[in-house]
């Protein structure tokens, strides 16, 4: 099952939007943080985890989702949020800690919540799993349409909670898909040093559910694997597990010196950048013209610029609003 031409354009637009967004965030992140790097300074304080290189996973999966479907994301959530349709203005404003942000500045970049599109995050490894499984349970019990997708990194599979949630989804036959973004690194620890099996699709056997591995960070192959898993979930046939080989082009967080990487690894990764690769494929297969692509790229750029402008121009929250919204109104 190949994405339609329209879906290919949608995926490419999402990937480019995410990349442009993060490139812009990266630039602004260093404002006020030089010459001495101080994480607390500048318009975007705190840790910043970029998803450069991992965009195909979010685009290939979310191409099959609608706003009513549920997604839980990780500490590295931007590409997933953009692909799920999270409001980009409010998301940018949240990252800037502004009153107009998704949560009025209470969450920050690791805690993006957009109830309009059923998107939530947890900054704790594997902890989006339980809520996604619970949302899937909710849909099944209510007879409401919708599937739940938990995005996790490959390091998350070694958390006990990941296993618990996979088993729960399987034993209750829930409309749930776990998507593992295997970027090969858990901060500085290589997957090979942390995980007993070379690929995690085999772990699906432990739950009696289908497991698929997608190699090469290929948006088309991701689209196909996700399409099967999500259709299966929608048909009431239960959960699935997908692991995608992807690449973290940047460090774990901004400021990461990445000394742990083997020499030359990053050069090789740049050559595997999925965005130029998809661009070339769209042209080669005649799915888009140079003009189409230029238009999509310009649209993405404009969208990002508008969001950043909105965020920059938004007001800071009233400090005392920190004391509100602890409980439901």
């Amino acid at each position, binding site marked *: 099952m190949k994405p339609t031409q329209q879906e290919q354009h949608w995926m490419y637009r999402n990937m480019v939007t995410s990349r442009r967004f993060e490139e812009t965030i990266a630039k602004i992140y260093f404002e006020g943080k030089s010459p001495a790097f101080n994480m607390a300074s500048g318009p975007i304080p705190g840790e910043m985890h970029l998803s450069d290189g991992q965009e195909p996973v979010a685009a290939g999966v979310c191409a099959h989702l609608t706003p009513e479907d549920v997604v839980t994301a990780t500490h590295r959530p931007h590409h997933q949020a953009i692909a799920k349709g999270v409001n980009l203005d409010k998301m940018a404003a949240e990252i800037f800690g502004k009153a107009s942000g*998704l*949560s009025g500045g*209470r969450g920050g970049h690791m*805690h993006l919540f957009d*109830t309009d599109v059923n998107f939530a995050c947890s900054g704790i490894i594997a*902890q989006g799993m*339980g809520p996604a499984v619970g949302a899937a349970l909710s849909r099944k019990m209510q007879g409401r349409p919708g599937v739940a997708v938990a995005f996790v990194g490959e390091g998350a599979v070694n958390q006990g909670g990941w296993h*618990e949630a996979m*088993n729960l989804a399987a034993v209750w036959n829930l409309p749930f898909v776990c998507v593992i973004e295997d970027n090969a690194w858990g901060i500085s620890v290589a997957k090979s040093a942390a995980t007993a099996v070379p690929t995690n699709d085999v772990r699906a056997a432990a739950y009696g559910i289908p497991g698929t591995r997608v190699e090469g960070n290929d948006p088309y192959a991701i689209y196909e694997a996700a399409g099967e898993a999500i259709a299966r979930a929608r048909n009431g046939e239960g959960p699935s597990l997908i692991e995608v080989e992807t690449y973290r082009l940047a460090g774990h967080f901004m400021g990461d010196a990445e000394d742990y990487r083997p020499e030359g690894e990053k050069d090789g990764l740049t050559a595997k950048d999925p965005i130029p690769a998809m661009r070339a494929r769209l042209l080669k297969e005649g799915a888009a013209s140079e003009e189409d692509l230029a238009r999509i790229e310009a649209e993405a750029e404009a969208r990002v610029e508008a969001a950043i402008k909105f965020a920059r121009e938004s007001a800071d929250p009233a400090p005392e609003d920190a004391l509100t919204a602890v409980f*439901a109104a």
Partner: protein
Amino acid sequence: MTNSNERKLTIARAMAEATAQEMRVDPKVFVMGEDIAALGGVYGNTRGLLEEFGNERIRDTPISETAFIGAAVGAAQDGMRPVVELMFVDFFGVCFDAIYNLMAKNIYFSGGKLKVPMVLMTSTGGGYSDGGQHSQCLYGTFAHLPGMKVVAPSNAYDAKGLMTAAIRDDSPVVYMYHKGLQGMGWLGTEAGATVHVPEEPYTLEIGKAKVVREGKDVSIVSVGMGVHNALKAAKTLEAQGVSAEVVDLVSLVPFDRETIRTSVGKTGRLIVVDEDYMSYGLSGEIIASVTEHDISSLKAAPKRVAFPDVPIPYARVMEQFCLPNPDKIVAAWHDMKAA
């Protein structure tokens, strides 16, 4: 009095009745946890629910607290009203992220746009030699962390009203019931916890303490089992010519500091009884509520009768040595007068 007015229930039955009544009127309410279906809950608080509602809404779970409490958060955010059980509060160690990082924070992280209407019911307390991983109260641990309401009934009337209120609340409520008050035949049960409970649904306001015995010489403030110890001590003190007031906190979050201050303002003396560990917890918070507000309201330094800062020991004589009891409360009064 008619028979219905005299209907007495255990806390376990009161909890089950409140849950059943809410489930009858709201299809979004469901229960999940370990051994809550066919067994009816290890402490009896879901007994009879499976027979009425079936195993779609009364769900036994695998022994996977992280997954099913996390799932309750996800279901609550998606419009359901889960009542989920952590069999022993001591088990929070395997699943606390789901509780304090997800359940307690997601409303805040959404800027108040999300509701997380779930009840986490959990058993507390020892006194029956179950050892240090099945006997704790941990009131202070839960009440310390923002984003969760915390209630702890001392009797069946409060238990029913609190459960109904907790299920209807749009924020997460931790419902801490004491094993020694449940009315289970195989556990020593405090008789004073089994009281008249009206059949019709009603709510008790979460965050409101109660003066359960009026007095003028000293305020004894406690929660759960401690309230019964305080009432027994108050009887002994009465025979000695001392008039003790007893405050049942009922809720730990929100914390009704006003009722404590009013009582101490009247009596001028404060004894706090807490089955949880002494330091950094509920007992210190109660005292601070008074001292930082108006230290002149105190005629004497407050006293604490709390569990010493040691793991809960197994041997009967050792555990009983550590636990609060009426004699210790009476002794605290005499220490206070002697000082």
